[in-house]
């Protein structure tokens, strides 16, 4: 079940204190969001080292430019996810320009050049099944993977994902639907017990 919007007041109070130089407030906000940001960066970069770098860079950006967060446009968590997404995508070589909505016809299958083959395939997760799913997610076309990571794995709302990705909510829904269909297709061999790679 999707949860309703969180009350922003406690975080906004912390943010105000942080802007005045309150170190404890920064640490509190960091602890609240560090793992979400790290996991999102891990999914985008496919590398623990890149994810750690992206997480650190995200919070440095946050502490140096907190005024760039506009509470009227969403939660701090969603904004941090957006920053981390952009940093993580840059860190893997800027291959994902194809998520630009104007560069894609949303309802068409992705062109071969949009399919990311260069995502690092270092083993990240201990569980075999979870690692298979992670790799299957990494093998999706970037504009589908993007929305799947934001909506399914980072649990952003459609509206937040739309804002982070710079697309409208209808496009988020259709891309998520197609991402799920592609993912199910790629995981089908595992579901049948087949041994071949995705």
């Amino acid at each position: 079940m999707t949860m309703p919007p969180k009350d922003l007041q406690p975080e906004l109070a912390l943010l105000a204190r942080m802007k005045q130089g309150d170190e404890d407030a920064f640490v509190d906000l960091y602890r609240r969001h560090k793992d979400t940001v790290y996991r999102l960066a891990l999914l985008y970069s496919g590398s623990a080292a890149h994810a750690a770098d992206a997480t650190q860079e995200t919070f440095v950006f946050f502490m140096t430019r907190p005024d760039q967060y506009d509470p009227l446009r969403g939660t701090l968590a969603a904004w941090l996810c957006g920053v981390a997404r952009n940093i993580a995508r840059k860190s893997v070589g800027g291959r994902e320009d194809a998520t630009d909505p104007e560069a894609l016809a949303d309802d068409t299958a992705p062109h071969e050049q949009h399919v990311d083959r260069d995502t690092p395939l270092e083993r990240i997760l201990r569980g075999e099944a979870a690692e298979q799913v992670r790799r299957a997610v990494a093998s999706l076309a970037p504009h589908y993977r993007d929305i799947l990571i934001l909506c399914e794995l980072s649990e952003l709302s459609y509206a937040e994902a739309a804002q982070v990705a710079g697309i409208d909510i209808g496009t988020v829904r259709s891309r998520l639907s197609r991402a799920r269909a592609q993912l199910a297709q790629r995981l089908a061999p595992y579901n049948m017990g087949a041994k071949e790679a995705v």
Partner: protein
Amino acid sequence: MNTNETTLDPGQETLLDLKLDELKRELSEHGAPAAMQAALVARFRQTKPTTTRPRFWWTPPIALAATIAVTSWMIRGPVPPSGQLVALAPPTSTLEGDPGPFLALQPLDRIAAEPGKRVVATEFPRALLADWGLPVSPDRAGEPVRAEMLYSADGEPLAVRILN
């Protein structure tokens, strides 16, 4: 999370959700490296604004306190006779009247045990109501809906009351 537009059958949907849950469960064991906090705090100390107190920093607070004290003394109302205590009703709603019951989003015993609950008027997309099992007309799915949220002290939503 299911979508209305997916082409998967219900069995495939369930299987895919199970796979994604497995990935989420394993991802939840991963977090930012412990050493990162110390590095960021050190960086924060370098970047935070310096707060040096002006020489006569204490004069504005003293002047403000004196003004409040004098004003309070000048406009204070009659003291109620002893034995007639004034009871204040707890703030249960931000609206006049009773717009209807709250819909619990958490177990009732947990809501009852939460300290420092508060009611906040808010707006969110009508489509969100469908996730709670409430009927939503597709024509109006994009419209905002006014509601009152019951939040815990740390901002977690406990219950919702739809106003329109």
